[in-house]
């Protein structure tokens, strides 16, 4: 009993990564170790480059030079800043809660690292290879882990990341950080719902939680961005920006209102950790968007099955797609003004959540219709009609409650 249970547990843990399905030997361990180290170092490097890239692009758009002193084109500026932060004095406010104050940066940083574990970064998805590569004679996927829960790990980690920001604000024992963290929490919890519902549309098409299977299903340009009809992608991107607390949703650290937001009281390396987590999250979120909607590392490999076709070309495609979304986030920051807080909440609750739920139901209706052999046009029209009726009711109720609120609040203004 025990031995069968164990083998099942081990089999389930890897889901479908062939690396861990057989005997777990020393080579297996070595492969896992290599993957972890490569992912860790790669992520850190990408953050260093991302910070530099963002500063350079924004500087260009504002007619400045940006960092240009440390290293060629200022490439080492981030490293210099990091070194500076490490050697700065570590301050803690007198009214801070010491334990939670020290814990919060770690709670912010660790989820940011862990999410990347499920992102496939290379491996050929053509010629029936299904993303399997061979390292040291071991067959495996080019991602740190492929757990059975797959993409749910991303949701779990993004919900845990809230703790870092929330506790940082509270533990500082200061007003503005607390206000910033309360804003952040409300915003992130609200947008997580829209994020999850947009994700559900992708899972409906993919039929699996595993990121490897999701990417595999998109091979040959059957990308989810058009397989799900664009709407989930748009909603996911907006919700992801809000989840990252990046402009235009950076109310958390609105300088004009809240000094620095939740990390006002942090200095030295603890501040660097929040900064690192923010950029890690940006890179990871872009990678998740690429994985979910744009086929991850899948792309034309021109029939090559050697190392060029398995490692170089897929990674190139992945990196190219990733770069597009990193540019998108930088452009958001450079060009969009910040939302007002009530606008953020209205957008999340009254538009994104109903829209993503409605679109998901529409996809479900079409899916059931095609399974049952119904007339697809009639099914789609019926579903749209039902959803429009629902949307009408929703708009009506929002109008009614808004009118009521105005009726209550106006007399105070002396009209």
């Amino acid at each position, binding site marked *: 009993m025990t031995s069968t249970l164990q083998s*099942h547990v081990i089999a*389930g843990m890897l889901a479908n990564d062939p690396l861990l399905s057989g005997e777990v030997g020393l080579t297996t361990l070595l492969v896992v170790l290599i993957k972890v180290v490569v992912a860790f170092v790669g992520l850190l490097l990408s953050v260093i480059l991302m910070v530099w890239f963002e500063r350079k692009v924004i500087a260009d758009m504002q007619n400045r030079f940006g960092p240009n002193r440390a290293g060629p084109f200022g490439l080492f500026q981030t490293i210099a800043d990091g070194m500076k932060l490490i050697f700065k004095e570590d301050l803690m406010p007198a009214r801070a809660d010491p334990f*939670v104050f020290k814990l919060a940066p770690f709670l912010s940083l660790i989820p940011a690292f862990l999410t990347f574990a499920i992102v496939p970064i290379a491996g050929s998805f053509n010629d029936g290879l299904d993303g399997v590569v061979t390292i040291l004679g071991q067959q495996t996927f080019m991602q740190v882990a492929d757990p059975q829960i797959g993409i*749910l790990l991303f949701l779990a980690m993004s*919900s845990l990341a809230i703790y870092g920001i929330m506790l940082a604000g509270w533990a500082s024992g200061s007003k503005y950080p607390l206000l910033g963290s309360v804003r952040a*929490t409300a915003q992130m919890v609200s947008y997580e719902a829209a994020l999850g519902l947009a994700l559900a549309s992708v899972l409906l098409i993919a039929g699996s*939680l595993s990121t490897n299977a999701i990417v595999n299903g998109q091979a040959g340009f059957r990308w989810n961005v058009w397989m799900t009809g664009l709407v989930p992608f748009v909603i996911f991107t907006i919700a992801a920006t809000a989840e990252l607390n990046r402009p235009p949703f950076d109310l958390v650290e609105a300088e004009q209102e809240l000094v620095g937001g939740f990390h006002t009281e942090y200095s030295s390396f603890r501040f660097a950790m929040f900064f690192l987590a923010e950029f890690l999250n940006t890179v990871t979120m872009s990678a998740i968007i690429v994985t979910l909607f744009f086929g991850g590392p899948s792309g034309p490999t021109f029939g090559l099955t050697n190392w060029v076709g398995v490692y170089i070309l897929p990674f190139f495609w992945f990196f190219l797609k990733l770069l597009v979304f990193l540019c998108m986030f930088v452009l958001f920051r450079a060009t969009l003004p910040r939302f007002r807080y009530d606008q953020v909440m209205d957008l999340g609750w009254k538009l994104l959540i109903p829209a993503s739920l409605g679109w998901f139901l529409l996809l479900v209706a079409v899916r059931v219709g095609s399974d049952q052999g119904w007339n697809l046009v009639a099914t789609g029209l019926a579903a749209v009609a039902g959803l429009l009726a629902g949307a009408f009711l929703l708009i009506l109720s929002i109008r009614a409650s*808004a009118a009521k609120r105005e009726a*209550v609040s106006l007399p105070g203004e002396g*009209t």
Partner: protein
Amino acid sequence: MRVEMFTFLLTAAICLAGSAGVVLLRNPVHNALSLVATLFGVAVLFIQQGAYFLAAIQVIVYAGAIVILFLFVIMLLGVDKAEGLDRDPILGQRPAAIAAGVAILGLSLTALLSVGSRVTGQASTLAAIDGSEPNINALAKVLFTDYVFAFEITSVLLTVAVVGAVVLSRKAGPAIDVAEFPEGTTADLLQAKYDAAAVEQEVLEEVATEDETPEGEAETTEEALR
């Protein structure tokens, strides 16, 4: 030591320490954090039993949403201070709590010792743990076939709870006489107010300029005189 045993002992220690922290720590925020540690430990135990989906949901729903809301309420209400535990809010609360705690412990231990491995020994009850299909597929099949009514009734129950909470928390103020208030949205009304103010301002400025003209002339004449 076997890896499973090691994981179990570590996780069990985290769970127990977290539970003790929930009960013993004085600061509500620390209590909530200890609860997160316990929930996390339980999630790891679920994984050890092969219940991956349950573990993920445990983290997403309990640690990621419910405790966050606890913390949110604690922070917003400003009750994040050590509480005075000198006297019970309800008479006899403490003895009753001790009695209930002992009774629950006794029942659990009795169940565990008398029934034996059937309480904890079996790996899984319903979802086949043969590893051939992921948890979520097995769970979905069961939920949407054998237990579909229980599932739907549970969701209706949750909806009823939400509606009930909204109805109960609504303040019953005096009825609003809508006829008393002007038509239109706040934005329109504010705009109208703003326009009216602007017109008033213009009138004032006109009056002011009319007043100023002679003064200005006077100044120029004064300057001319100099």
